[in-house]
């Protein structure tokens, strides 16, 4: 028979009220944490246990009847056994022992306990005096022993002291409860158990709510320290080293490491309290906890690591946090924080903190990569700049650059020498500094041409030498200045003169013997005419003379052709603004008499509106005349030669069509080659050196123009010549060399 003890009753009620308050607090703070859930259940069943005992005591003391007693007894039994079992579950969870289906098993166990006691209640097996059911002591002793074993086993880990004390007090309460019958400790045992549960709840509230709140300030400080270590450290390895140290210290861990992704593997780049042998340690993608970060891109918390695939022995590794370093949706590395086997066990909040650090590490790593790329780029640019400066500096061509105010910003050695500049002249205006007229008089034109991205060229003389000066702008969108490159063309000009002279001399030297031979042949023919020679002999002699004449004439034609072509190639162009219609009129005028001899009709039409272009009038006219002459040559008597000028976009196209024999397709690609002559049927009697079209092509190339043809055998040939239209406002280029 239990006696009602008001003091213990008050203690129990107070404990109950406090436990209830903690229960609400814990569930409010985080109802989804499994640890919180277990503590909540422990508190609930402890409350039930207490409530049950109170009900039993009240019913006995105040004779409230059997149902009241039975309800109290039921609550006491269920609360007692369940809280005992829950303590074990709570401890397992707290030290990180994971078994599959932990929570379902825990809940199932609770269900069994509740069911068993309900069964006992229903079948009326409750003793009239308050006694525990026969199966409960065994369970109590079993779970109490297991709970104490865990506490002993993990005494060196980071189990909070309050949790350990609370757990021992709860076990003490449970065990003392078994002594109830003989020692009358029932209500006292519940008080002890309640106090123990209360201590556990305080421990949890402290670790989950009070400590985190307290440590928020220090977290901010730690993050601040990490940021400082990133920004202060000049190199990536220093910054990462700072982060691993911060991570280990902040999370109260034994070691930490940062891995960097390199193609398909992760390489250890920074570590804290890890063996030196692990520096540069590499882990394949997908291999173990670290390698898996590359695949899953998910942070992992392992309370107790037991696999063999970690880079450290499982004998020394306890709890592990592995967090991917993600930047721009790519895993660029991983942060691993490790606690020893008997050390702290990481919780969810540790993982969150580790993720914070990982984000910082990712930024640091990326910034460093960008910095390295920038440094490398800068180095390449510097090298390229130096090389360019060395090349420009050592070139034999004077190069000088000025800014928009015409102040010298660069002059190579040759430019200094030629323009007689001195060391201090850089930064000074070029106007009036050099004697020669380096700045062209039409400077507005230079600005206009260079602004459009072009090059302005002009000739100038410096100390008896002739230079071709080419000016281009500096800068992309706006003109930052100009650079002038001077080419010494004194020798080129001399060479040009010598070449022209040689052509003239060769022409003279080759043509004179032919003239002499032909003249003497003519005299010989006269002599034979007048001499008394037998007709047969005369015929033979005239045949021979005829052959010699033909060969000499051929030789003369070839020499003239070669000289014409060489002259066109060697000579510069006298640029002028040409008009396609005037040029065509001249060419047609020139050839009209020849066409008239063969009664060939000319059909000339000009449909172009853009008619002007820059060219050498004489050479271009000759090229067009050559084509028309060819057309006349290959057109039978009474035929027609059509000349049509039109515009194709910004091109002026000359189209010259004959109704001649046509050019077979296999010959078309050869007709512009020197000395090539078509041997198609019908061309046998048409004379030519095979140099005319070659000359036309050369002229067109010098005008950046194009020539092409369409031809059909037996129908005729059309030659097309195109040259770029230029408005009349354009500036004429200098003579080309």
């Amino acid at each position: 028979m239990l006696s009602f003890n008001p003091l213990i009753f008050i203690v129990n009620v107070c404990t109950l009220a406090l436990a209830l308050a903690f229960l609400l607090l814990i569930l409010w703070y985080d109802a989804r944490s499994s640890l919180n859930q277990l503590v909540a259940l422990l508190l609930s069943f402890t409350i039930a246990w207490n409530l049950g005992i109170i009900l039993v005591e009240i019913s006995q003391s105040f004779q409230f009847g059997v149902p009241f007693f039975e309800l109290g007894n039921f609550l006491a039994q269920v609360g007692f056994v369940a809280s005992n079992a829950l303590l074990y579950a709570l401890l397992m969870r707290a030290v990180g022992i994971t078994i599959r289906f932990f929570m379902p098993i825990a809940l199932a166990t609770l269900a069994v306990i509740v069911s068993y006691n309900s069964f006992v209640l229903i079948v009326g097996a409750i003793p009239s005096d308050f006694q525990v059911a026969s199966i409960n002591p065994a369970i109590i002793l079993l779970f109490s022993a297991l709970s104490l074993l865990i506490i002993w086993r993990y005494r060196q880990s980071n189990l909070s002291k309050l949790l350990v004390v609370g757990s021992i007090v709860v076990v003490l309460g449970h065990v003392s409860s078994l002594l109830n019958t003989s020692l009358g400790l029932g209500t006292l045992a519940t008080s002890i158990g309640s106090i123990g549960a209360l201590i556990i709840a305080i421990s949890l509230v402290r670790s989950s709510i009070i400590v985190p709140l307290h440590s928020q300030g220090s977290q901010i400080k730690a993050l601040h320290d990490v940021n400082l270590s990133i920004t202060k450290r000049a190199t990536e390895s220093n910054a990462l080293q700072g982060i691993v140290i911060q991570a280990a210290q902040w999370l109260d861990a034994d070691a930490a490491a940062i891995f960097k992704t390199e193609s398909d593997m992760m390489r250890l780049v920074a570590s804290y309290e890890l063996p030196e042998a692990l520096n540069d340690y590499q882990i394949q993608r997908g291999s173990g906890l670290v390698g898996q970060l590359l695949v899953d891109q998910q942070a992992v918390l392992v309370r107790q690591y037991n696999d063999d695939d970690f880079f450290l022995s499982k004998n020394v590794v306890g709890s592990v946090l592995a967090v991917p370093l993600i930047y721009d949706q790519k895993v660029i590395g991983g942060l691993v924080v490790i606690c020893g086997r008997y050390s702290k066990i990481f919780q969810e909040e540790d993982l969150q903190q580790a993720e914070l650090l990982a984000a910082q590490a990712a930024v640091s790593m990326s910034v460093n990569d960008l910095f390295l790329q920038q440094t490398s780029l800068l180095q390449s640019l510097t090298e390229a700049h130096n090389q360019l400066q060395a090349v420009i500096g050592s070139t034999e061509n004077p190069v000088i650059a000025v800014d928009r105010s015409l102040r010298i910003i660069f002059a190579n050695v040759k430019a200094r020498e030629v323009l007689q500049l001195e060391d201090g002249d850089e930064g000074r205006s070029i106007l009036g500094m050099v004697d020669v007229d380096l700045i062209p008089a039409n400077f507005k034109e230079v600005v206009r041409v260079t602004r459009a991205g072009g090059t302005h060229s002009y000739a100038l003389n410096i100390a008896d030498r002739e230079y071709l000066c080419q000016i281009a702008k500096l800068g992309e969108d706006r003109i930052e200045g100009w650079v002038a490159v001077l080419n010494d063309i004194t020798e080129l000009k001399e060479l040009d003169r010598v070449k022209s002279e040689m052509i003239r001399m060769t022409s003279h030297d080759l043509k004179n013997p032919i003239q002499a031979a032909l003249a003497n042949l003519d005299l010989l023919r006269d002599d034979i005419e007048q001499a008394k020679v037998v007709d047969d002999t005369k015929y033979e002699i005239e045949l021979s003379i005829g052959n010699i004449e033909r060969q000499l004439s051929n030789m003369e034609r070839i020499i003239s052709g070669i000289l014409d072509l060489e002259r066109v190639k060697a000579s510069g162009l006298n640029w002028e603004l040409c008009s396609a219609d005037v040029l065509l009129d001249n060419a047609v005028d020139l050839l009209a008499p020849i066409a008239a001899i063969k009664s060939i009709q000319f059909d000339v039409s000009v449909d172009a509106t853009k008619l002007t272009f820059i060219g050498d009038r004489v050479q271009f006219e000759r090229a067009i005349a050559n084509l028309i002459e060819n057309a006349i040559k290959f057109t039978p008597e009474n035929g027609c030669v059509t000349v049509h000028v039109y515009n194709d976009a910004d091109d002026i196209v000359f189209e010259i069509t004959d109704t001649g024999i046509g050019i077979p397709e296999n010959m078309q690609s050869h007709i512009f080659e020197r000395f090539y002559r078509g041997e198609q049927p019908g061309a046998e009697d048409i004379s030519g050196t095979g140099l005319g079209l070659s000359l036309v092509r050369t002229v067109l190339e010098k005008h950046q123009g194009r020539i092409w043809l369409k031809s059909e055998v037996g129908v005729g040939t059309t030659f097309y010549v195109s040259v770029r239209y230029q408005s009349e406002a354009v500036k004429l280029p200098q003579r080309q060399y």
Partner: protein
Amino acid sequence: MKALIVDDEQDIREALGRKLRREGFEVVVCANGLEGLKSFHSEHPDIVVLDIVMPGEMNGLTVSKRIREVADTPIMMLSSQAITEQDVIDGLNAGADEYLIKPIRLNEFVARVLALMRRAQAAVSQTEQSYDDGYLNVDLHRRHVYVQSRKVHLTPTEFKLLAVLMENSGRVVNQRDLLEQVWGREYIDDVYYPRVYVSQLRRKIEADPSNPVYILTEHRVGYRFEKHNG
């Protein structure tokens, strides 16, 4: 008829000389420019055949200029180097009436020598023998041309060209007729001639040769002389 042949190539000058002698010419041959100029002054030839490129200080162009300083004797130039229109123009500017490019056949040579002489001696039989508009004054009979009262020297060929155009003033003379009437039938294929000579003539009589008012071009047809009222 006396012809002076100046050419540094012995074979050529001998062959040309022999051919002209056969045609009834009296021929004097010289091997260089200086000798040629001396012979011109001592022999008073009716026609001069000059090679352009010759050794020594005096080439054909110089000799031609020196002769033109004192006489209107027709000069035929032979060149082995003329390739461009400009070369021909240079020769004509030096006073030549005819510019032949080597090699030339002897029959053609003789025909051209005779044609040149005909041109030089041609009597002006046209009805209208003078023209004066204040700026240009031409006396066809006396073979005088004045531009703004300043006497202008025309070579025989230039004069003949002007005369033919003036005779047909207001009408277009086509290229073929021009070649035939001025130079002769032998020149019918020398299509460059009219343009080159007209250009020369314009330079001598027009105020602005690039915008001529007397000798006008009719494209693809020929040329026309336009009179102006003084």
